[in-house]
Structure formats: C-alpha cells, structure tokens
C-alpha cells in the first residue's frame, strides 16, 4: 500500500472518520483510513490505563448516535451494545438530594417531595422538549443549505427548511426561538422553581461549552442533549459494553467488513495539493498515499491550519477558521477504585430524615451522580474559568461504568468516570503537572464533600486537562465537540460560511468531523452526511 493509490483517504479514525470510511467503502470505494494513534476512536476510546481497570477515557455515555447509522452499518452485528444508564442523583449542600429515576412514577414522587408544582411541570417540560427535538431533528439529518446562494437546489433546500419551520405552528416556533436564544437558566426559570432541579438540568446546557448556565445560547445545548431521546425505541443516555471504545470498535469492524483499510500509528503531516486539487497525503515520516478524495475527520483548526498550506486557502476562509471557537472547558478524571463510593445523602438515615424513598446503594450507583447542587454553584464554577483558573468547586457528571458492565474492573473493584467543568484550556500561565494535580485534587475534594470514602477507595487516578485532551486526541484546545456548539457556529455556519457542506476550498478535499454540521458528541451524523455528499458528487 506504501505509495499506492486508493479512491479515498480518510485522515483520523475518530468515530466520524470511521463512519465516513464505512459509507464510502459501502459504495464500492477503495478506502484507506490513517490514524495517528495506536487505536481507533479519537475521543471515543477505552484504554486500560491501570492494569485490570478499563477507562472510557474521554467520552463515557452514548445517546446521540444516529439510528440510521446503527441500522445501515449493522453496528449491533459488530458489537454495539448500549446498556441503560437510568438515574441521576444530585446531592445537595444541606444534605438533601434530588433524584431522577428511570421510572416516571418514581421520578414524579421524588420531584413532588421538592415541589408539587415542579412535579407537574416536569412532564409538560418533557413533552415540550420532545416537540422541540422533533422539530429540530429533520435539520440534523439535512445538508445545511447555503442561504446566500441562488442556485435552484439551494433555494429548494432553504424552502424546505422554511416550510418545515412554518409547519411547526406559532406555539412551537416561539418555543424554538426561545431555546435558540435564551440562557438555560432563564429558560428553566420559566418552568421550575426547584433550584437543584434547574441546576442539574442546566448542566446539560453547558457541557463542552465555554458558557455558564446564565449565558445566552446555552439553552440550545440543552436541546442538543435531548436529541438522542426522541427515537422511541432507542434509550436516552446509555453505556456501551466494554466502554465507549466499543462504539468505535464496532464502527471500525463494520468499515473493515465493507473493505476499508485502517492504518494505525500513521500520523498525517500534510495534504498534498496540486493545482488547487487534493491528490493525497504525506505522513509525518514522509510516506505518501495518493487518492482523488481526501477527507479529514480532524477538527477544523487542525484540518485547515495544520494539514493544508495557508497559501492553498482563501484568506477570509483562513480568518474564519482561526476565529472558530474551540475554547476547551472540560476535564476528565478517571479513577480505579477498591470499593464503591457511598453518598452521604443516600444513607438510609439521611433519606429518612428528608422523607425520601429508601433506595439500595446498588441501585443509585448504577446511574449518574451529578454534582450540581445549586444554580449558583454551577455559575460560580464558570466564574472561576472566566477568570482564567479551573473551578475550585467544579460541576461534575460522575458514572461508575463497572456497576453497569462488571467486566470494566476486576471483580469487586470499580472504575469511576468524572467529567468536570470548568477546566479552561487557556488557564493562566498554561497547564503544567502541578496544575493538573491541583485540578485533580479539586475534583476529588469536591466529590469527597458528598462521598467521604472516595479518597481511601482510590487505587489510581488519571487526570485529563484540556491540554491533555488535545495532546492525546488531537482535539484543538481540548474542545470536546471539535468546536463550540454556539449559535454562530451551527448549521450553515459550521465550521465556516460557505463551507458547511463538508467541502473545503480545495477541490477533492473534504471534512467530516464533529466540527461540521450538525456537531459534536458521539453522533456520527457528520461522518455519514460527508460520505453521502462525496458520493453524490463523485459517482
């Protein structure tokens, strides 16, 4: 294959690159995937960092993965197995707690304990979000039209979008408009009175962004995370058997079965451009591979500012890409544990004190623990980041994968995944080992407030700052979505006006990562749509 020629080269074996490769191969193209690391998956990998303990190192839960991809690539046939993650418990500062269970009646009963009105509102809110997700869903599966173009095809596509918007009716249209523009805090204030409920819900509006719950625009991210919940037969958030890497392995398996070749430890140094046309890539070691189709699964900054020489690109385009916001704000702490944590708030005496319903620890530990006790807590966590440091008291989303899949850790022992915000990439003075450990300590301290036995249970820990995320996965500034999900970076603006359709200014060169429409998370939509675009142009 060295110096050989294939039909298409995909740079980067993130899940989107793999999906793109699989679809191209399915259409009969000879495809070569080149991955920098020793394993596929990008931000969706499982690694045994501590012997015997498997970490879903970066992303840890799955919900957005498009059903059509699961079906068309027969991912269950290649090992996709999503196990339910049913509940969320939020410990509060006064010792009380808020739980959301998998069962509607149980959740209602728990909410009622906090606010009878919110118990009613919760159902209505759920129905509205269902409506909204349903309204936005066609947009996600749609190629973003170019609003400035007058070509009949673009106008037709714009018309379809307009028609879709009109078909929503006034009520839903206004609600959608609110969601697109408001802060998640304001949006939730219109519905609920229970602060801890709003804090916990608002958290999904800040994930992966450099926004606080009170920043306008955060409400949309809330919706982005609801998106996975509307495909009836599919569950909401789930956990892949064997960790998130299992999703990537399943996609890689499907791609290989369809004939794609995946080459590991093959970092691409540059895209070879001749006369404004891409003709292949050169690895960092100088090896060259040739193809008429070159697709990048990397984020837009890496794709255009590192792999392509600036002179091959229009100046305004380069300026747009440089401005594309990739401010990383999330960190991750993965723990190997000798025993399960115990939440003080879920001890039987404490539950009785707050008149809650007794729940055995095995049950709530199978779900998520959200460290989002108040709206102020989450907003304050953001304030720290705004001023250039990591949150002293971070927002955290904690899961114990070994409670769901016992094979994640040695029998009786456990792994814990802690997703935390905020850890700004642009920390004052830059990240170093001391700051990383201080950040890890802050995370553990903040968790120990609610689970005092955590410290003594830790066998080993892996702390990942945005700088580490960038170093390991290549995500610029450690931004988990390859670029923020902000309104000015979505749809026909993702990643740059005029280039939202997986094309680039270089002929034959395409992009397929989360940095393109419809955006981040383990969704796969951009990988698939990119492949369909390429095939549409070159069949």
């Amino acid at each position, binding site marked *: 294959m060295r110096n050989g020629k294939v039909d298409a080269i995909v740079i980067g074996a993130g899940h989107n690159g793999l999906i793109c490769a699989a679809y191209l191969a399915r259409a009969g193209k000879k495809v070569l995937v080149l991955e920098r690391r020793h394993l596929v998956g990008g931000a969706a990998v499982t690694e045994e960092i501590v012997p015997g303990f498997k970490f879903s190192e970066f992303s840890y839960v799955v919900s957005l993965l498009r059903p059509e991809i699961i079906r068309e690539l027969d991912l269950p046939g290649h090992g996709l197995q999503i196990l339910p993650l049913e509940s969320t418990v939020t410990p509060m500062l006064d010792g009380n707690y808020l739980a959301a269970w998998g069962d509607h*009646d149980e959740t209602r009963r728990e909410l009622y304990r906090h606010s009878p*009105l919110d118990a009613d509102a919760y159902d*209505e809110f759920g*129905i509205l979000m269902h409506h909204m997700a349903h309204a936005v869903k066609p947009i996600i599966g749609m190629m973003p039209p170019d609003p400035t173009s007058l070509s009949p095809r673009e106008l037709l596509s714009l018309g379809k979008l307009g028609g879709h918007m009109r078909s929503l009716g006034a009520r839903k249209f206004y609600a959608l408009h609110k969601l697109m523009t408001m802060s998640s805090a304001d949006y939730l204030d219109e519905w609920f009175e229970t602060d801890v409920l709003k804090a916990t819900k608002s958290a999904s509006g800040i994930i992966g962004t450099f926004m606080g719950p009170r920043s306008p625009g955060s409400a949309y991210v809330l919706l982005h995370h609801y998106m996975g919940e509307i495909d009836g037969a599919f569950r909401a958030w789930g956990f892949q058997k064997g960790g998130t890497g299992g999703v990537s392995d399943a996609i890689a398996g499907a791609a290989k079965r369809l004939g794609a070749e995946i080459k590991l430890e093959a970092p691409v140094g540059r895209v070879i451009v001749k006369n404004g046309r891409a003709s292949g890539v050169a690895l960092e070691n100088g090896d060259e591979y040739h193809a008429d189709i070159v697709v990048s699964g990397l984020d837009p900054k890496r794709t255009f500012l590192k792999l392509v020489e600036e002179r091959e690109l229009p100046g305004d385009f380069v300026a747009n890409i440089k401005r594309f916001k990739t401010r990383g704000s999330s960190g991750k702490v993965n723990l190997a544990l000798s025993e399960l944590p115990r939440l003080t708030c879920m001890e039987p005496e404490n539950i009785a004190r707050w008149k809650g*319903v007794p729940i055995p620890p095995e049950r709530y530990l199978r779900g998520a623990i959200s460290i989002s006790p108040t709206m102020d807590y989450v907003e304050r966590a953001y304030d720290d980041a705004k001023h250039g440091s990591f949150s002293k008291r971070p927002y955290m989303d904690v899961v114990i994968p070994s409670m769901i899949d016992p094979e994640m850790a040695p029998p009786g022992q456990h792994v814990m995944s802690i997703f935390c915000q905020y850890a700004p990439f642009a920390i004052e003075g830059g990240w170093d080992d001391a700051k990383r450990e201080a950040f890890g300590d802050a995370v553990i301290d903040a968790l120990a407030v609610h689970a005092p036995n955590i410290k003594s249970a830790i066998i080993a820990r892996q702390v990942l700052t945005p700088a580490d995320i960038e170093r390991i996965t290549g995500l610029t500034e450690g931004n988990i979505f390859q670029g923020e999900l902000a309104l000015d970076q979505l749809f026909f603006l993702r990643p740059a006006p005029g280039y939202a359709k997986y094309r680039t200014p270089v002929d034959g060169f395409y992009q397929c990562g989360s940095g393109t429409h419809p955006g981040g998370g383990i969704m796969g939509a951009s990988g698939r749509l990119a492949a369909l675009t390429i095939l549409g142009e070159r069949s």
Partner: protein
Amino acid sequence: MLKTTPFHPRTAALMEAQQWRRWAGFLAASAYEMSHEREYHAIRNSAALFDVSPLYKYHLRGRDATRLLDRVVTRNVAKCQPCQVMYTPWCDPRGKVIDDGTLHRFGEDNYRLTSADPNLRWLHQNARGMQVEIEDASERVASLSLQGPLSRSILEHAVGRDLGALKFFRLTNATIGGVSVVISRTGYTGDLGYEVWMDASEALPVWDALVVHGKPYGITPAGMLALDIARIEAGLILLDVDYVSARKALIPGQLSSPFELALGWTVSIDKQPFNGKPALAREKADGPSWSLMGLEIDWLTLERLYEDMGLAPRVAAAASRVSVPVYDGSKQVGYATSSAWSPLLKRYIALAHLEASSATPGKELEFEITVEHRRKRATARVRKLPFYDPARKRS
C-alpha cells in the same frame, strides 16, 4: 417503588394471585380473586368495594374558588349547589380536553376537584391574582367506592341512618366506624353507588366497618378489571385509553374536544369566559367532526367468522384497551378505544370514535377482529351510549 394506598394492609391481605397494576404511582388491585368474574357480578348484583384512593384530589377554598373553577371547567360552577357534585371535563385554550373529573361543592367557597392526571400546576396557572387556596389533597384524603344495587343498604347500616334523601350526584357528611366521612352518590359504574371520602389516617376503620356491615349483603372487594367492564357498559370514558389529554397530545389528531367525546352537555357556552370558550362556541355552531358512540358487534357475524375456522366464538373475559379500526365498506371511519364482552347484557360492546357522518345510531359498520391470527371484520351497529342505565342509579 410504587406507593401503597391507606387501605393496603386490607387489600394486600385479600390479594390471591398478585394481580396488581399501577395507577397514578400507586399499587392498585386488578383483581383480588383468580378471576375478576365474581367481582364484576358484585357490581350488578350486590355491592362491589373499590379502593379509589389513587385519584388526584384538589381542595379549593377562598373567595375566588368559584371563579377559578368556572374559568377552568366547562360546566357552570356558579349553578352547582352546596352539597352537589358535578361531572365535568376541562379544556386548554384550544377547547381540547385536558382531563375530566368530579367537582364537589362543600360550601360557598369550598370545593374538591378530582382528576385522572395531576392538575395542580394547571390550577395554579389559572389562579394568578385570585384569592384561593389550592391544596393537593390527593394523599391526605383516601376514598372508597361502593357500587351496586345493595350499596345503599350497606351504607345505611354503616352510617346508622336512612340515605334515601341523598340524590344522584349529591353529597352528605356522615360517620362510619367512628370516622367522619363525606359520602357522595357518585361512581364509575353507571349503577346505584356511592363514594366515601375520609382522612387517609382514618381509612382502615372505615373499610372494616363497611366490610362488617356489608357482609350480609355480599359486599365484595373488587379490582380494576371488573370496574373496566362496568364503565364501558355505562359509556364512561377513561383518560389515556379513550382520549389523550390535550397536554400530552403530540399531534393535532390526538386532541379531542368535549363535543367529540359526547360531553357536549357539559359545555355551558353561555357562562362567563372560560378556557377554550371561543373555540368551543365555534365548534358548537359548526358541529363536531367526530363523535364518541357505542358500537355493538353483531354476534352472528362473529360466530360465522369463527365457524369459518372451525371454531366456536370466543371473547376475552377482560376488557380490551387496544384501539381497533372501524370501517364503512372500504373506508375507515373511526376506531374503538375500549371494548368488552358484557356478561350482563350478553353483548360484545365498544366505545368508538366515529366520523360525524357515520355516527348515526343504527348505522351498520364493520369492526376489525382477529380470528386465529387472521384479520377479519365483523358487522357492528352504532348505538347510543350508555349501553346500561338502570333506573336505580338515580332513584
């Protein structure tokens, strides 16, 4: 974990086959005995005792209680006398039904509203600026329903006085087993029957007294399977089965107006403004496009369909909540949402939503039925509701 009602110590002891279901987050008996048959016949033959505590109940007190209720429900609340009960639906601003229940007027400014779904937030949203206290009494108040031809005799023994003066849809205070209760002459069976309301902390003595006094009259604790058949015979609709709440509907086709649910009689279009009034006034003038009607499946054609397979006709003992298409020739003109074999009427009956043009009593339609894994159509005739309406219900 599901909640248990205040009667759980008694009902759990009676449960023979662990046939529980959930109702509004509570554990509710489907049937106590191995089959619900005897429990059903108690409703029409002696007296059946139901634990209906999971009902949502709201108490409204204060100067604006009447105003609030009049804004929310479609009936004219100002006309409801103290000690009167009104059955009523309530609508959203589009005039589509959110829920239905009974409204009990205790005094000038003192009411109880029962409902199938939670409505606390809805009441609060409608009460802005009003002087009214809204209490969610769902768990504070327990309730029993005693239904059947002998229910009055049992209750008279239990309260120690004549109840002949308690008319249909009226209520009275009384004492049972030393506990003060409210007795309303209401129910969900279309039969002579009463509902007994008490503080949850004093529920058990009431149950015990009723059982003691009811024994000579064949009082029979009964579950939801028996009730379901009786309410279909009585033509009484059930939320989430016969209609979708306007709050939960995902598409316009899932909405129903009171007129479409045969509840046009509950819409007091001339009273002060209330939720949905303009839309309802329009619909009243134009006529609804759908009607809830009875359907009676013709036994002879049913028999023939089974005979073609070499079988004798068979119907399930329990009511069905599966939606069934209804045809007029090749065209689907509606769907039946509840159906049951009525052991009393010896008829196979259904509640059906029919396009207005097909909703004429006597009209012959076709009801889809599966015989030995094959879809067939049986002849069915449109009937006025209710199917069963004994004189004793009101006398």
